[in-house]
C-alpha cells in the first residue's frame, strides 16, 4: 500500500470511528436523561427514540447558517475548525489493539496533551469574534476554566508515565499487561479520579458548564452560531467526550486488554474491550451530568487550583519515591 492510500484509509477510519462514537454518546446522553427525567421525546418517539441523533443532525443541517453583520467573519468561520481539528487529532495515538493504531508515537502522551490545548484557542476566538457580550463572557470563562484544568490533567498523567517508564500509548498498555493489573488499581487510583474530573471540565459538561451556562449567558461562546456551525460545536463536544474516555480507558484501565484473557488473542477482542471500557466511562459522565447542579465560578477555580493541582503534585511525588524505592 502506498503512503497516500494508507493516509486516506486511516483518515477514513478515524472519521467513521469518531462520528459513530459521537452518535453513540449523544444517544446515551439523551436516553439517560429521558429515563431519569421521564422525557417522552428520546424514549418513545420514532423507533423508541433511537433516531433522535439523526433527527437532530438533519434539523441543524437544514437550518440557515447565519453570520451576523458585525462579526469578524474570517475568525468567526475559522473557530469551529480549530476545535474540530483538536478533537480529531486526539484519535491519532489511541490504540484499539497493539497493531490497530494510526501511529504509535514515542511521545504519545505528550502529543495528546499538546494537541488538546488547541481547542482552548478555538473557544477563545469564537467568543471574541462573535461581537456579543455574552459570547465574550463565555469565551473568557471557558479559557479560564480550560487553562486551570489543563494542569491537573497533565500532572495526573505524569504519575502514570513515571510508573510505566514510557510515553507511548501502546507501551503504557503493554506495561499494564505485564503488571497484571490496570494502573487505576495498581497505584494510580487518585490520578485516575483527578484525570476524569479534569477531563469533564475540559469538555465543559455539567457540572463544569459555567462557560455555556444557558440560564445566564444564553449559550456562552456559541451564542451567535447557528445551523451547521453550531452542529460542529455540538458534535465536537461528544467526540471529545468519546475520545477522552477512550484515552482514560487506555492509560488507566488497561486499554484493549482485560486481566485473565489470553494475551495472544488481543487483536480479536481488543477493539470490543476498549469500546466497552470507553462507553462505561462515558456512561458515568452521563449519569454525573444529569444528577448534579452547576458549580459556581469561584468554586470551580478553587477545585482546580487548591485541590486537584496540589493532590496531583503529591501523587507525582509519592509515585517517584515508590519508583526509586522499589
Amino acid at each position, binding site marked *: 500500500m502506498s503512503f497516500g492510500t494508507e493516509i486516506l484509509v486511516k483518515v477514513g477510519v478515524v472519521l467513521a470511528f469518531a462520528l459513530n462514537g459521537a452518535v453513540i454518546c449523544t444517544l446515551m446522553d439523551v436516553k439517560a436523561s429521558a429515563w431519569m427525567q421521564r422525557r417522552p421525546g428520546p424514549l418513545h418517539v420514532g423507533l423508541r427514540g433511537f433516531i433522535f441523533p439523526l433527527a437532530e443532525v438533519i434539523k441543524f443541517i437544514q437550518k440557515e447558517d447565519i453570520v451576523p453583520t*458585525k*462579526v*469578524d467573519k*474570517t*475568525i468567526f468561520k*475559522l473557530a469551529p475548525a480549530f476545535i474540530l481539528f483538536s478533537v480529531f487529532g486526539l484519535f491519532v495515538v489511541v490504540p484499539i489493539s497493539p497493531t490497530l493504531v494510526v501511529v504509535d*508515537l*514515542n*511521545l504519545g502522551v*505528550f*502529543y495528546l*496533551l*499538546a*494537541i488538546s*490545548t*488547541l481547542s*482552548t*484557542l478555538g473557544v*477563545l*476566538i469564537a*467568543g*471574541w*469574534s462573535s*461581537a456579543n457580550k455574552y459570547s*465574550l463572557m463565555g*469565551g*473568557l470563562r471557558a*479559557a*479560564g476554566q480550560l*487553562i486551570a484544568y*489543563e494542569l491537573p490533567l497533565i500532572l495526573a498523567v505524569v504519575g502514570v508515565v513515571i510508573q510505566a517508564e514510557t510515553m507511548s500509548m501502546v507501551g503504557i498498555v503493554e506495561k499494564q499487561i505485564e503488571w497484571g493489573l490496570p494502573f487505576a488499581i495498581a497505584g494510580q487510583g487518585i490520578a485516575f479520579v483527578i484525570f476524569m474530573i479534569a477531563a469533564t471540565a475540559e469538555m465543559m459538561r455539567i457540572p463544569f458548564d459555567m462557560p455555556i451556562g444557558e440560564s445566564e449567558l444564553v449559550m456562552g461562546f456559541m451564542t451567535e452560531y447557528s445551523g451547521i456551525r453550531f452542529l460542529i460545536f455540538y458534535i465536537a463536544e461528544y467526540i471529545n467526550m468519546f475520545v477522552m474516555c477512550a484515552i482514560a480507558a487506555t492509560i488507566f484501565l488497561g486499554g484493549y486488554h482485560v486481566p485473565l484473557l489470553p494475551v495472544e488473542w488481543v487483536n480479536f477482542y481488543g477493539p470490543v474491550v476498549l469500546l466497552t471500557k470507553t462507553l462505561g466511562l462515558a456512561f458515568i459522565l452521563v449519569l454525573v451530568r444529569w444528577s448534579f447542579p452547576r458549580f459556581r465560578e469561584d468554586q470551580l477555580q478553587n477545585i482546580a487550583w487548591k485541590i486537584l493541582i496540589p493532590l496531583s503534585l503529591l501523587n507525582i511525588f509519592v509515585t517517584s519515591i515508590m519508583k526509586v524505592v522499589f
Partner: protein
Amino acid sequence: MGAIDIVSYFLILGLLLAAVRVVTTSNVIHAAISLVFTLAITAVIFLLLSAEFVGMVVVLVYIGAVIVLFLFGIMITRAPLGQNAELDNEKNKTLGLVISLSIFALFSYVIINSFDGKMNITEGTSTQVLGEILLTRFVYPFEIVSFVLLAALIGGITLARKDNALIDEDQV
C-alpha cells in the same frame, strides 16, 4: 528533489506569509492568530527534521499556553473588532528592518557554521538523547533556569496578593 522537499518549500512559503501578516495587520487578534499559524508551521518543520520533542513543545507551550494567555489578556482588557490605527507605527520601520535582518544574519551564520548541514544523532531517538543530555551534562544550567520560574511565581503572587491590612473588612 523528493516529495518531502516540495512540501518543505510550501511550508516555508506559508511560514513567511504568516510571519509577515503578524507584523503588517492592524488588528491585534488577527496578529495573534497569524502567530498561531507561524508557530504551527514551525512545529511541522521541526517534526520533518525528526525533532519531534521540540515540535510538540512549540505546540504545547507556545500555542497552547503563551498565545492563549496573550489572547486572554487582550480580550480581558480591550480588543476592538475591526482595524485599529494605533497599531501602525511608521517611525520605527527602518530600525525594525535593520534589527530583524541582523538577527537573521547572526542566526544563519551560527547555525551553518556549527552543524555543517548534518544531524548528529548516533543512537536512540532525538528525544531520548535530549533527555539524557539535559539530566547529565547540562544538569546545572537546567536546574538554575528553573529559578527563573520560581522568581516569576513569587513575583506573580506578590502582585496579585492583597495585603490584609489594606482591606476594609466591612466592604469585603
